[in-house]
């Protein structure tokens, strides 16, 4: 299929991009195009103007600073994944990226594009949520930072207002003493997850859990924190019994979605709990090793 006719604007700076976005009723940012272009080809999206930000120099940068990795909106998944600094500073991110599609797609797809796309089954929004990251947004009124928990507001919808764009994501680096894991269930490697989890556990000197972060993806309309699991773990010694109880509570209060084609809600809940158990075990082990 051919997309409906559209105009293409290549923006070399953020102000140029904002001007182009403001200049049309239905303008969309184009990053790696790995989600947007297929849906345009199916004519499920018919933007009037595409504003390509993928080559703007100021968006092509990423840097680690003060315990935070900042990734510009033009940086591809593959660049991050292959970067020695990123590999050393944020192995959890690298592992998460490896679960996204295949290298060909990651060579074009961007981290910020994935956040903006807000697919409920995507890995990166859950990573941002679990690690308390922020999305940096630019608009006519200037720049603002949106905490992960407020950024994704529904399936494929975000807190971006008309005319706004994502310029960067800020990802706090996992600190020493904490252990992290990411895991997912996919029918074929590289597929969107039927259920996925990003989790982190921090241990105190006594081997108790000083804080747990568990974010689920692929199971609800948006990535969600598994507060049930986190509450079980907080302050507990993360032994088998505690991890069992945490996994059993992971879906408390989560409005799980299901469908005929990929997996029912019941499956996602049940296999998802087992997945959480496995990921928490890995996170606790990593925390123990790091401490």
């Amino acid at each position: 299929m051919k997309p409906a006719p559209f105009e293409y604007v290549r923006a070399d700076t953020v102000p140029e991009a904002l001007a182009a976005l403001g200049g049309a009723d239905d303008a969309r940012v184009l990053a790696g195009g790995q989600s947007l272009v297929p849906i345009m080809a199916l004519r499920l999206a018919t933007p009037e103007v595409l504003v390509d930000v993928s080559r703007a120099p100021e968006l092509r940068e990423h840097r680690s600073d003060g315990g935070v990795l900042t990734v510009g909106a033009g940086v591809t998944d593959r660049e991050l994944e292959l970067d020695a600094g990123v590999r050393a500073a944020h192995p959890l991110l690298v592992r998460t990226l490896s679960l996204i599609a295949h290298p060909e797609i990651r060579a074009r797809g961007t981290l910020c594009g994935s956040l903006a796309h807000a697919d409920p089954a995507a890995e990166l929004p859950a990573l941002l949520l679990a690690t308390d990251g922020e999305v940096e947004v630019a608009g006519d009124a200037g720049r603002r930072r949106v905490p992960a928990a407020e950024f994704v507001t529904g399936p494929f919808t975000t807190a971006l207002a008309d005319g706004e764009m994502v310029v960067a994501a800020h990802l706090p680096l996992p600190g020493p003493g904490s252990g992290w894991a990411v895991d997912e269930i996919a029918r074929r490697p590289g597929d969107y997850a039927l259920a996925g989890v990003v989790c982190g556990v921090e241990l105190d000197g006594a081997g108790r859990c000083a804080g747990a972060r568990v974010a689920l993806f692929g199971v609800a309309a948006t990535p969600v924190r598994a507060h049930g699991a986190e509450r079980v773990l907080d302050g507990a010694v993360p032994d088998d019994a505690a991890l069992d109880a945490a996994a059993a509570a992971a879906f408390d209060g989560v409005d799980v979605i299901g469908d005929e084609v990929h997996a029912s809600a019941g499956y996602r809940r049940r296999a998802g709990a087992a997945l959480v158990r496995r990921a928490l075990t890995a996170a606790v082990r990593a925390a123990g090793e790091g401490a």
Partner: protein
Amino acid sequence: MTGTGYVGRAVRRREDPRLLAGRGRYVDDVTEPRQAYVAFVRSPVASARIARIDTSAARSAPDVLAVLTADDLAGHCSGWRGLLSWPGMVAGEQTALATGVVRHVGEPVALVVATGRGPAEDAAELVEVDYEERPAVLDPVAALEPGSPLVHEELGTNLCFASPFGSGDVDAAFAGADTVVDVTVRTGRHTAVALETRGILAAFDRDERTLTVRISTQAPQMLQTLYARLLGLPENSVRVITEHVGGAFGMKAFVYPDEIAVAAAAMLLDRPLKWTQDRYEAMQSDTQARDERVTASLALTADGRILGLRSQVVSDAGAWSMYPRGCVTEGVQVATIMPGPYRVPAVAADLRVVYTNKAPLAVYRAVGHPPAILVMELLMDEAARALGLAPDEVRRRNLVRPEDLPYTSATGNVYDSGSHLESLERAVALLGPDGLEERRRDAAARGRLLGVGLAAFVELSAPGAMFYGAKGAPITAHDQVEVTLQPDGSVTVLLGTPGQGQGLHTTAAQVVADGLGVPLEAVRVVSGDTGVVPHGSGVWASRSAVVSAGAAHAAAVEVRGRVLALAGHLLEADPADLELSEGVVGVRGVPGTRVPVHEIAAVAYWGTHRLPPDLEVGLGAVGSYAGPPYTFNNGTHVAVVEVERATGLVRVVDYVVVEDCGVLINPDIVDGQIRGGVAQGLGGALLEQVVHDPNGQPQTSTMLDYLVPTAYDVPDIRIEHIQTPAPTTTLGTKGVGEAGTAGAPAAVHCAVNDALARAGAGGVFRQPIRPEDVLDALDRAPASR
């Protein structure tokens, strides 16, 4: 075998360099001067009356040349019925564009022609169609209830075809049985997902009144005949060209309404027209397959001997019986192949083929075999469990033995040769049963259940006219091949049946090089242009290694005889004393007499003054194949799977194939066919399914939702061959192109059920086996986890 012995050697596929370098020529790669582009308006609903079509806005859109509906094509392209002379079969009349009624999502309703594909699609969105929706018929069992809505009002029923199959006293068999096991199995509706989607480039020469059609099809001559018939042209005025075809698997063996609509429009508009199908169109309008519901029971003695087999098969035909093969072949094969390689003295199968509001069901690689073999192998495993026998032992006790051959199955199939028992023994040996306990423990330590599944099977291949030709379709087995020795000693081979990536150009060259006695490099093979090649009925039913190879051999031997006759004259020797090998003629036993074949060929072309007038000088000959009504290959597959307890995910970790397709022309090519086939079968077992919502909307119209196996999903496949020559074919070959697909769904499925049984769980009886089916089965297990 004559000559130098290329047959049997794994020579490199000559097709590959071009295809691998991206220099293949598929339909979309070719552009004609003045070419315009087609896009279709397709039905967005499963069942509706078309109340009104308004094309005015589309017609006046930029760059649009024409917008056509059924009314516009009515006088230019006849309708058809996909009927074969099966007793009682009924089929509705189909037209190139839907006439008055739409019967499945994706059915073509209007055709837009524009100077570019983009504008054609833009204008297609402007065509207004008012649909009066009707309740969709989706469940083929409910469709037979009185009062069900009808897919084809004119037929007065949704039942397309019903028939019993089998012979022997089944009632007595069940009455006398010590053990009866039964299964109810549902296989998933598949579609072929060809890498090259369908497409056509049709050009009409109004002065010559000739139609040239480039099309991605398996059966060019069949389309030549049918396009001529439906478009009102003499057959010698229709030329069908297929260069490279990027996958077909049975799906491209039909007159498709959208394709012939493009041909009709090209004639009407006097302009070359191209249509290239999109993937979402493929997922909605290509033929589908494997939509079978089977209930079957097996009667056995206490020592595990089969007494009888009963089955009820309901086949979901979708909306149309595709022309000209029809929609009943799959169901018939499910019913008749089911006894497989086993001695089953009595069979009673009951088949019903039912219309529903889905894309048409038709033949797909290994037609009907996967469900048939699946059901039988599930029954064998249930029997093994019921009788406390090992799965291989219950099979061993029932497989056709060498002394039983030739064996006629209770459904009338004759197995003239094979290695039914031996293939099982070899497969078990290759699996290495001694190492299994350790593999099981290792898997358990990783939270996984190891399962082993066996599938012993026979596969019907290379069928003759009885399948279709005898029932009224232009499809037979008497293919032809023309072999010509050129003046310089090079050889041109024109194949009636096109080579489409299966390696037929390579294997045909091997057969001709041997049959004629020339080096392989001297042979060039051409196919896929009905203006050039002799007759053939296309690539389907694993036939080329039997039919094309047979015809190629016949032609090569004929040319060789002519060369030797000429050489006899020129060398003043008795042709019977001459030999031709690697392009050199010599007198047998006289080493000094060696004449390169090109010296003789040159005389036949340009030096005929040296020859007596009565000698045949033509060095080109057409060979025809005439052989048995079919061949049966046989084999055994073993799949080893790991089932993850926590998630229900299944991974195939080891795979063994023992295959007997008679004489191997090229072992590597056969292995490639088997590997690809196993991958497809694995997809059927674990991944692929066309899903509809309750209104008949397909939910799997992209490859995000319709899951095909990828390289990650397919294990290394260990293949061993047994070569039991076919007693009745020219070279002793049997067909094999579909055998991998035939056996794999059963082997993988039985392996999953074995893993589940070892955890105390009952099996899964549907395909694809989804992770949640596995978890559900584990949940129901009485044993603790």
